[in-house]
């Protein structure tokens, strides 16, 4: 009797240990339901196509966000924060967010900045590290410094939402 109970429990344990099931194609994990809205991107998009062009359109922005994700998940200062997070989803939503803000023709379907960064324990130094990595990535794409700053000006007001102590 006891043995069969233990068996039953251990059988039930298996799917729980494997964690939630990812999307069969992308591997992206489900998140708690939320209202999709471009306003979740946390900044209004640029007007006109000057910024989108300077950032190389969707292709250029994709390279930037992909390289940014590689950078932040391997930088010793902040990589720990990304351990166990859904990097597939982050890669997609970060691209959408940058593409939307740069007015390169995307909608942002991710969560708002406050909910996405709640309880991560990020500090000012983490945000500065992320900004430096982004600057390096934009340098690699030969984006003019003044335009890098114009883009960073869209992200800078998000500080209180992404840093939580």
């Amino acid at each position, binding site marked *: 009797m006891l043995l069969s109970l233990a068996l039953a429990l251990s059988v039930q344990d298996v799917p729980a240990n494997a964690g939630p099931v990812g999307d069969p194609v992308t591997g992206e994990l489900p998140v708690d339901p939320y209202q999709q809205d471009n306003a979740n991107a946390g900044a209004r998009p640029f007007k006109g196509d000057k910024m989108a062009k300077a950032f190389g359109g969707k292709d250029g922005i994709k390279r930037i966000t992909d390289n940014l994700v590689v950078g932040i998940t391997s930088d010793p200062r902040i990589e720990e924060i990304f351990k166990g997070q859904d990097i597939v989803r982050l890669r997609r939503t970060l691209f959408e967010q940058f593409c939307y803000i740069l007015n390169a023709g995307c909608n942002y379907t991710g969560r708002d900045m406050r909910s996405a960064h709640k309880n991560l324990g990020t*500090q000012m130094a983490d945000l*500065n*590290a992320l900004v430096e990595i982004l600057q390096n990535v934009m340098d690699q794409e030969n984006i003019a*410094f003044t335009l890098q*700053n*114009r883009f960073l*000006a869209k992200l800078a*007001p998000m*500080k209180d939402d992404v840093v939580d*102590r």
Partner: protein
Amino acid sequence: MKRTFHLLSVTMAAMITSIAPSAAAEELRQGGKLLLTNGIASVEGSTGGGLASWSLIAGNETRDGIGGSVHATVAEFKDYRLDTEGLAVGFFNRVELSYARQALNTKAIGQALGLGYGYKLNQDIYGAKLRVAGDAVYGDPLMPQIAVGIQHKRNLDSQVTDAVGAAESEGTDFYVSATKLFLSHSILIGATARYTKANQGGLLGFGGDKNNDYGVQFEGSLGYQLSRKLVIGGEYRTKPDNLSIAREDDWYDFFAAYAINRNLTLAAAYVDLGSIATSAEQRGGLISLRASF
């Protein structure tokens, strides 16, 4: 005078204890500031540009740590040379305590005044600064980083300050400063109001026969960020005019500040101090090196 100094140390102690408990509960974190966001050392040792004070706090620390810096500045003019060395500690990017020693080398003027060639006027400056609101880089794009500060200055050559007609050889300046990097334009703007009666920053004492009242003076800075490591700009600083024997002019400069790396910032400037102790057109060059951690 002793009383002002006591007041200053009490203020400093109160500033530190008011912020320490909240931060002490968590682990301290070293470094983490963006390049150049700790400014350079001003002539008075507080963080600023070269001549003007800024609301930035010394050290590489963020709000989760303690940092500091040491600096040396040499400024060479037609008839004078000003050497400044100092150090500053930044607590949680909130409070800055600083000390600087200024030495004004009077070269041939010292000889003319019978003090001897190259006679040096010395001054100690004890500073404390508290960031009260805002962030120079992040947050509301129109909200600057605002700080209030105090600089207690002790001129060590009272026989000279007496001789030029200054009322006192020690004095205290109070200031409020706002600084913002307008990222969308890569422009840095700083504005400071200083309540002071210092003559030539205190090197010629405080107050004088012509005027012995405190007054509000203005310091303005405009910078353009060329890269993460390089800012160029200019500064303007108005001054009191308290001594009848020596007219005092406003100061201005054109500067470049370069972050050699996370720990070293080099600044160079063309500086015009105007007339100093009756010697007109004191223009020259300034070089300043600051190490921060």
